[in-house]
């Protein structure tokens, strides 16, 4: 058993590095497609302004992409570094999508990204366009495989515990790939990425319009961003609803916790719009009748179970898990014990629940009734962070539909510059997609606690047996380096935006300040 403080710091480190990495990934997803659209228009119309737009947004894309690559490599390695028991216990299932991501997606994206920047004068127009689309395709495929892996942590299908190797092994690979949770997460997440990319382009273009600079590029960029953004914002919410529906089926506890729902209500359940704890164990709530039942069960007669019922259910599964645990001990003593193997096969789906007892005692089979009850109550995640991160995400999601609808409408009337206050609002709205995305990621991962793999492996049991100092040193390094890089990146992006499209950036020390540097034409090969 790893030291509890090591577990907490490992969780903190994983959350910090993943959420930091996830600041750059959605922008890569969205901006790669926006750029590919712009370059497509350039190739079809041959108009120079679209090439300039592609180059300008491409420069910003490059800075963001570098940060994504820098922080992404950490993700690939830290499962083994900080979560070694997890890696060994589920690597047979979880490793495969990560490796396929490398083979199918990241190779494509990373090989062609160089050509995107260096291939302008070496490729024909259409050739370069194909390269740009391949980068976008690679980025999106990448998200698919990562979310298939993550979907399995939420809904571990197609695998079972093998008593001889003490780990989860795949028996149905198609079930892992076509896991509905993974698929729903994929479309929800890439749509959120498209919203982010659109917002980025829209907000910076609005700034140009306010400053009355680069009007030609800003107006065209805004049209692309508003239409693509509106489609994406609608898709995020519609497909997010699919995520919610699946959560009801597979992760009932996550739903009950994020709804702060202690007891099962008669169907159809009401949706809590807002709730505040009053300090004496009670809460003040505003509830909307029927809504939760409708969105989460798509019916008027199915119940959404409350926390108390789910804890009782967990207790039953812990008791069944102890049966599996005892059978496993018998198999270890005598691998030929057919009776023990039959018992194990029947009860092993609850083996993970027995592992919850490891926090109280190593000899799980001797757990007291109080310990079993304690472990069952431990399956309830902290509800208030979930409650609010969910509402933050959904609130911003709806707001952004209205936002992009407004700009789409203005774009179709060719009145993008009509209202300066609206342009200022567009600039100010820049951080919104990131807030929603980080809220959503937090909701998905924190809501899965105390499990690292839902119902299969508790988080506290999955960590590496590292020393406190290992974590202090690594966390210190990450925080320092990531903070410095964030400051540099933002400074650099501001500088690039200030210089604006058409200006090359200081390429040699004698080139002077970028704003004063005349544009250097490049000749695309015909």
């Amino acid at each position, binding site marked *: 058993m790893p030291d509890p403080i090591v577990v907490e710091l490992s969780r903190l480190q994983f959350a910090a590095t993943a959420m930091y990495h996830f600041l750059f990934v959605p922008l890569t997803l969205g901006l790669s497609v926006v750029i590919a659209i712009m370059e497509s228009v350039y190739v079809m119309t041959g108009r120079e302004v679209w090439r300039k737009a592609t180059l300008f947004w491409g420069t910003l894309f490059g800075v963001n992409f570098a940060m994504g690559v820098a922080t992404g490599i950490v993700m690939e390695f830290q499962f083994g570094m900080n979560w070694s028991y997890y890696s*060994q216990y589920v690597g047979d299932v979880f490793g495969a999508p990560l490796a396929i991501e490398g083979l199918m997606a990241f190779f494509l994206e990373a090989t062609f990204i160089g050509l995107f920047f260096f291939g302008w004068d070496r490729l024909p127009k259409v050739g370069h366009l194909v390269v740009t689309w391949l980068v976008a395709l690679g980025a999106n495929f990448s998200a698919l495989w990562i979310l298939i892996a993550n979907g399995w942590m939420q809904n571990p299908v197609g695998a079972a515990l093998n008593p001889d190797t003490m780990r989860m092994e795949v028996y149905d690979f198609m079930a892992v790939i076509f896991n509905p949770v993974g698929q729903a997460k994929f479309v929800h997440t890439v749509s959120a990425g498209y919203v982010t990319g659109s917002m980025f382009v829209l907000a910076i273009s609005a700034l140009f319009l306010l400053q009355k600079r680069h009007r030609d590029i800003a107006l065209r960029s805004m049209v692309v961003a508003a239409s693509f953004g509106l489609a994406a914002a609608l898709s995020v919410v519609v497909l997010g609803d699919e995520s919610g529906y699946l959560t009801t089926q597979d992760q009932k506890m996550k739903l009950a916790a994020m709804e702060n729902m202690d007891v099962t209500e008669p169907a159809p359940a009401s949706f809590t719009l807002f709730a505040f704890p009053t300090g004496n164990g009670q809460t003040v709530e505003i509830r909307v009748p029927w809504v939760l039942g409708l969105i989460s069960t798509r019916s008027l007669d199915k119940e959404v179970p409350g926390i108390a019922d789910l804890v009782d259910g967990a207790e039953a599964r812990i008791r069944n898990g102890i049966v599996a645990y005892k059978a496993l001990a018998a198999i270890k003593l005598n691998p030929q014990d057919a009776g023990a193997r039959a018992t194990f096969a029947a009860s092993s789906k609850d083996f993970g629940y027995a592992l919850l007892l490891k926090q109280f005692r190593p000899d799980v089979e001797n757990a007291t009734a109080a310990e079993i009850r304690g472990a069952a109550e431990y399956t309830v995640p902290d509800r208030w962070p979930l409650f609010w991160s969910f509402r933050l995400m959904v609130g911003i999601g709806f707001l952004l539909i209205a936002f992009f609808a407004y700009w789409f409408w203005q774009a179709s009337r060719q009145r993008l510059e009509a209202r300066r206050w609206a342009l200022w609002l567009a600039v100010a709205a820049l951080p919104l997609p990131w807030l929603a995305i980080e809220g959503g990621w937090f909701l998905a991962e924190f809501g899965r606690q105390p499990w690292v793999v839902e119902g299969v492996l508790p988080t506290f049991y999955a960590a590496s047996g590292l020393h406190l100092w290992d974590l202090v040193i690594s966390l210190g390094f990450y925080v320092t380096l990531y903070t410095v890089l964030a400051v540099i990146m933002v400074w650099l992006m501001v500088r690039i935006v200030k210089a604006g499209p058409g200006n090359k950036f200081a390429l040699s020390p004698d080139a002077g300040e970028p704003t004063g540097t005349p544009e250097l034409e490049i000749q695309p090969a015909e």
Partner: protein
Amino acid sequence: MHTIPLDYETLRVIWWALLGVLLSGFAVMGGMDLGVGTLLPFAAKTDEERRLLINLSGPTWEGNQVWLVLGGGAIFAAWPVIYAVSFSGFYLAMIAILLALILRPVGFKFRGKVADPRWRTAWDWALFIGGFVPSLIFGVAVGNAVLGVPFNFDDSLRASYSGNFFQLLTPFALLAGLLSLAMLVTQGATIIAMRTRGPVAERARRYGGMAAFATAVLFILGGLACLLLVKGYVILDGAAVNGPSNPMHKTVDVITGAWMYNYASYPVLLLVPGLAVAGSVVAWLGLRYRRGVLGLIGSSLAIVGIIASVGVSMFPFILPSSLDPRASLTVWDASSSQLTLFIMLLVTVVFMPIILAYTAWVYRVMRGPVTADGLSRNPNAY
């Protein structure tokens, strides 16, 4: 259940070989960029010279690094317990590698965006660290794997590691680290010599020649150490080649010189270390006599020979345990399930040729010498 057309033993050997292919792929492809990074302050003195080197790696280094990412993913998928034990056991060494690798993408991308010499010098150092530190530590890690690593398992197969960062720095492991550094510097030097002109290429030839010589000498010294000093591991019994992946069913003996036993059983395997030495000599000749392609081929063959020598010497061991030799991880007891190995093999067989094809195409598009004039024409150059 599926029927799997390849037996478990064959799949395990294939994935052992593929692990070598992926590590060699990274060392050959990514090694060019790591070597360029390490040589950056030495082979290039002025900003213009350094830009030549940075833009030599610039268009292709990201694709090359995916070999490492894929290597990590493939170890996770095919050898999960090795991924788990080695990455957590070498924790602080891995952190050092990661911090160095984090500096690379930003170094390449950010350096050229600001003209201030202090800014550029700072990123030059970042790129140097990003090349030098991983080159050295990868070798130290492999050296420790050859020596055996202090870990054991409890009865739920949870690994405990009882070493620390400083215990990794034994003389043999440092020798392996220097070997890895010399080998990757040679690789970087050969690509610089091939694709640049003038004083930068000259300096690369000089340093590369020294590195190629050092590679051969350090490799032979390492081999002698394995013969005379280093304890090797031998499986006595209990290893079922088709059995479940549970390392605790075998017994293992530890004997000085045992890493040479495979060569005694199959003398033809001596061609593998022979390739490592011959490749280094060819690299040296290519650099000395200005045959750019020959240098790169020699250096690449040396890399393949060195990595394959480690694999062949240790087979079937991959990560021996010095603390509890029974717990050593081998080809027969550390793999994924038969189904996972088979599916991953299918995916690899389909995608690896595609990857090689488009990588070759990208190199073709970017072919030719890197010159200051060419850089001034590309506003996206680093």
